[in-house]
Structure formats: C-alpha cells, structure tokens
C-alpha cells in the first residue's frame, strides 16, 4: 500500500516535471520606468579597486544631485565570475541590475540570451554619442542593434628593450620584415633571450598578423589568412622563440617573460604597463605600434574593452540611461584613465589624455589606424572556449600539422560554431 502511494506520487511528480525550468522574460516598462528609487549597477572589480571606486563615487554623487529621490547601489563583480553572474541575472530578474559593465567580447552571448536593452535611442539623444568612433560602435552592435556604449579600450603594441637594441645597434622595426630580422638578430647575439616573445596560445598576438595580411577569423583558411598565420608561426622557431619553450605561452606569460627580462620584444597591452614596470625591464623599454607588412604601416590590433549596457528587464530604463551616459561621458572617461589607465573611447577624451601622457602615443596611433574585432556571433564564445585558434597555432608551431591542414581544421570548427 505504501509502495503504491509512493509510486503514484512519483508518477505525478514525473509528469509535472517533464519540462525543464525556464524563466520567462519580463517586459520593460514602456514609459521608461520610474524616475526615482534605487538604481542597481554592476561594475567589474579590479585588483586595486580604490581609484575606480573613487571615480564612480563622484559620478554617483553628481547623478543623485541631478536626480532627486534616487539612490545608486553599485556592486563590484570579480571578472572571473561574470559568466555565472550574468546568466543568473538573466534567469532571475529579481537579482538583475539595471546598468552593467561587460566585456565587449561577451556581447553576442548576452544578446542571444536576450538580456541587453537597445541603446540606439538613448545614444542618439546623447550629445557625446556622436563622438564614439565607428569601430567602437560597431563592436557594440549586434545584428544592427546597439547594445552597449563602449566605455574603455585596451590595445596591444610592441614593447622593446631599448638597452638591448642600443647594444646591438638595432632600430625599432617599422615593418614586419624588420621585426623578424631584429628578433633573429637578438636571439643570435644573445641566445639567453628570446628575440620576441610570442606564444601558441596568444590569440590576440597572432591575429594582428592575420588581419594585416588581409585575412580574417571567418575565413581562416583563405590564402591571406594563411600567409598571416605563417608570418606569426615563423616567429615560433628556434631562431627566435623555440617551440619547446614557446608553443604553449599565453599572452600573460609573454608579459611576464618581457618584464623579467627574458625577451627583447613582446606584443603587450597598455594595461600591462604596471606589470612591466614592476619587473626587471623597468626603465629599459619603449613602445612602438606593432608594424604591418608594408613598411610604415601598423598591423590592425584587437580592440578589447568594456561596454556599459542596460539590462533588458530593468524596471528603470530611463534612469539607467541617464546614469550610463553620465558614466560614459568625456569627463568620467578621462577620470577613469587617470585612475585606471584605461583608454577612453570618446575621441575628445582620447585627445585630452594623449596630451597628458606620451606613453599612450603608440597605442592611440594603433587605435586610429583601425582596430578589428572578433566575429559578433554567439558562436564566438564556443570558438574561444574550445581554443580553436590556439590549437591551430600550436599545431603549426609544433609541426603536428601543416599550415593548410591546421587552418582547414580550424575553419571547419569555426563555421560549425558560427553556423548555429
């Protein structure tokens, strides 16, 4: 008897539980929501958060002064937890914030999950919105809809050791050929150094070579892409950076190697300045833009960065838009540069900081020369997670596959992921 009851209960439970739980998207208020109350903001935490927090506090103070009866509740998330947090916010509207800071490569994933609000009208009505560079705007647009305001950028350029160059009589390279020659010269005359530290897992170090040759991620097995890839993997040779030591280096490791004095050159970002200054290379380096194939050209860099956006299920979209445009204004972008060293996205702000710090010059020229981005497709997350591009580079570098075979394999994986 008891067993029968239990079985019946189990069956009933089974029937009701036949569909997995989902959440239902809630509608945003059409009038823009309340103009008072608490605005919830999610920003990324930093290892040294105090400067950022100070700038944000200023913005909050200015905002609440201009908007009576409002409060701004800022929470800082660890970058590493953003995936779970954002999914949690999409799935549980009660926990969701209004304004968010998010990485620009995460945009397609969030957009496909239907989590971000359309910012077209808000940015259109924003005077400073016109100052956003088209590249930056493109990286925040998904299928024609603007889903974020680029807040700051980070790009990479070529750091080189001035003392080593002086000792060997080398000049900063202005073309890829010169780069390769200089690297080989350094390694030949100083075998304890790498000419230029490059790594098999360093996607954003390799992509500029591919882009400069006219190739792209979506057509990674075209002739131009292959030429670009070969230019990069030619640096993963015993005469520069032997595969045994370099095939599995990440970008972060190349920073460490340059900072500790093991490399003559490296492709490092403006955001790594502090790390390099903390190491043995301090005071002995300078930066130039990463040269392209043609003499005097600059290889297109990857424009990584963070955007500010509004959650689709926010109940105060108008208020959120006001705070967002305040935080993304030239005034606060310049303040953020002073605090964190982040490159502003507004052209006027960039001009202002350029005047203040000559260190930025090569990075700003790199941005002005035109930056590139990863495919704006939710499938990019899969490509990144599966390490399709690093595997391709490593296979060529270690000799496990030819350039043709590796790029064909990568192309298959990429089109499979992007197709969905």
């Amino acid at each position, binding site marked *: 008897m008891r067993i029968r009851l239990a079985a019946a209960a189990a069956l009933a439970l089974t029937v009701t539980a036949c569909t997995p*739980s989902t959440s239902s998207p809630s509608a945003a208020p059409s009038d823009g929501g309340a103009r008072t109350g608490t605005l919830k903001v999610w920003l990324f935490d930093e290892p040294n958060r105090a400067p950022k927090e100070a700038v944000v506090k200023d913005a909050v103070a200015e905002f609440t002064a201009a908007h009576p009866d409002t409060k701004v509740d800022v929470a800082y998330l660890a*970058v590493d937890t953003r995936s779970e947090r954002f999914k949690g916010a999409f799935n*549980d509207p009660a926990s969701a914030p209004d304004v968010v800071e998010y990485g620009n490569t995460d945009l397609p994933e969030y957009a496909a999950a239907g989590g971000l609000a359309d910012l077209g009208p808000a940015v259109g009505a924003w005077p400073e919105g016109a100052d956003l560079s088209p590249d930056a705007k493109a990286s925040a647009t998904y299928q024609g809809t603007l889903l974020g305001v680029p807040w700051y950028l980070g790009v990479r350029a070529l750091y080189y050791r001035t003392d080593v160059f002086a000792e060997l009589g080398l000049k900063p390279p202005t073309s890829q050929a010169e780069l390769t020659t200089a690297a080989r010269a350094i390694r030949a005359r100083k075998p304890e150094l790498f000419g230029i530290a490059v790594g098999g897992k360093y996607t954003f170090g390799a992509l500029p070579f591919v882009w400069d040759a006219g190739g792209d991620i979506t057509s990674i097995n075209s002739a131009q892409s292959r030429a670009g890839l070969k230019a990069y993997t030619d640096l993963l040779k015993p005469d520069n950076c032997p595969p045994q030591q370099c095939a599995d280096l990440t970008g*972060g490791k190349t920073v460490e190697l340059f*900072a500790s*004095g093991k490399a003559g050159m490296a492709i490092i970002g403006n*955001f790594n300045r502090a790390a390099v200054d903390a190491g*043995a290379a301090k005071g002995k380096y300078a930066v130039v833009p990463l040269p392209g194939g043609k003499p005097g050209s600059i290889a297109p860099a990857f424009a990584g960065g963070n955007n500010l956006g509004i959650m689709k299920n926010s109940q105060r979209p108008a208020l959120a838009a006001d705070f967002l445009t305040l935080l993304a204004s030239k005034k606060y972008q310049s303040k953020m540069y002073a605090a964190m060293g982040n490159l502003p996205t507004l052209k006027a702000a960039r001009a202002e900081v350029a005047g203040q710090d000559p260190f930025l010059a090569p990075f700003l020229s790199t941005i002005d020369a035109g930056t590139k981005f990863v495919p704006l497709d939710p499938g990019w997350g899969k490509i990144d997670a599966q390490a399709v591009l690093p595997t391709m580079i490593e296979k060529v570098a270690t000799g496990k596959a030819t350039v043709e075979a590796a790029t064909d394999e990568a192309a298959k994986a990429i089109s499979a992921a992007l197709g969905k």
Partner: protein
Amino acid sequence: MRLTRRLLDTLAVLLAVATVFPIYWMVLAAVKPPGEIQSLHQRPWTLAPSIDSFHRVLAVDSFGRYFLNSLLVALVVVVLSGLCAFLAAVALTRFRFRMRTTVLVLFLVAQMVPIEALTIPLFFLVRDLGAQVPGLGLNTLGSLMLVHTAFTLPFAIWMLRGFVAAIPEELDEAAQLDGAGRFTVLCRILFPLVAPGLAATSVFSFITAWNDFLFARTFIISATDRQTLPMALLVFFKPDENDWGAIMAASTLMTVPVLIFFLLVRRRLVAGLGGAVKD
C-alpha cells in the same frame, strides 16, 4: 627499535617538508615584491618582504564579511552533514531492510555526477525553493549550506557506516539490558565510538564547503554581502593581468582557517578507542 623509530621520524619530517614546500612557496610569493614573483632568479627567500599583497586582499570590500560567511556555511555544513550522516549510517547498519543495498548504491551514484552539469537545474530548484522557504533561495547562505550538505552526505554516510558497523551490537544490547533507551544508546554509546570517523568526515565537509567556487558564484548573484571567501580570491584573476601576489595572499588567508579547524578536531581524530571495544 629505537633506531628504526628515529629513521622513520626523520623520514616523516622530510616528507612533511616536501609536502609543505609548495605552501611555503605560496606564502613566500605573497610577501615578495611583484618583480620577484616572476623572475629569472628565483630564490626560496626574499630580502624585501612586504605585506602589500595582504593589504590589497584585505582591502577587498567586506573581506571580513566574506570570511564570516564562509565560516558560517562551513560550520553549519559540518554539523548538519555529520548529524544526518550519523543517523543514516545507524539506519543502514543496525537494521536490515529490503532496500538497504539499493539505498547505499544510490547514495554513491549521487556523487558520480559532474557538478557543472547540474548547475542550471539546481539554479532553478533553488530559485523555486526560495519562493517557498525564504532562507533557502537564491542570494542566501542557506542555499549554499543545503547544497553542500547534500554533496558531502554520501561520502559521510559511507564512511560512518564502516565505523558504526565496526561497533559490535553486543554493546547496544548490553547497554539496553542496563536500562538505557535507544536514544541513550545512540548518544552515549554509538556517537562517541564513531568519533574518529566523524572527525574525518568533518574535515572533508569543512573543506568542501570552504573551498567551493562554483556554487558560491552560481547562487549568490546580486547580494554582495552574502558572498563567500573564494569570491575575494577571484577578484585578482584578470585574463593576461593576474595579480599574482594578491592571489597568493588570498590563498594563504583561505588556507589558514582550515588548518585551525583541523587542529581542533585532531585530538578526536587521533583518539584511539582504548579499551572500549572488546574482542
């Protein structure tokens, strides 16, 4: 005999040093200036120690709060898990019933599931549970306590089962003949005798709950004052920009309480049974 003992003592100390060396390295990296952590001349010491990294870690907003949250969750899990497991272990050894083996195996199967696969179903379960029971929903510490109790139970049950089974039933009967009720038998006879096993499972439960990264960031979404210690560690991981000194400092701060907990239960763990068990 004494020579063998001395040799074994030395061997044990050497093994201890070898085992603890990576920990020492971690603490060392936490006090080294940044340039020395990644350097071409690694030294097992530093001439310029600084507690800067610890400052950065402790400056993480509400670090003390995270610490207390972690502690609370871990201790509650230890108690709940131990209690439920003890009762279940008694049920599974002192009684014979038809589904006994099935139940045991089911408990085991529960541990085989890779947890990442369960995060979405558990997320919705906790969310719906929170609608019914306020303390157990998303953004609460209760959800973490519940989940970790569940995940440490199977092992604890299996472990304590062995210990309870090792206690001869004659002891129960002798006590009952002396007039003790079942509850007294449970508390006064069985419980103390499984103490070493309970100590082992306590340490296991504590570590599982304390070092959890996955559920802490899946269930605690917006309530930053309910976050646990691993979240403080994760702050310092930024792709291509990791703050190694702070990571090592935070790791050190995370390791110490577990060692303290271990020292507290050690005596129980080590306590032999003396003459309690007759053969």
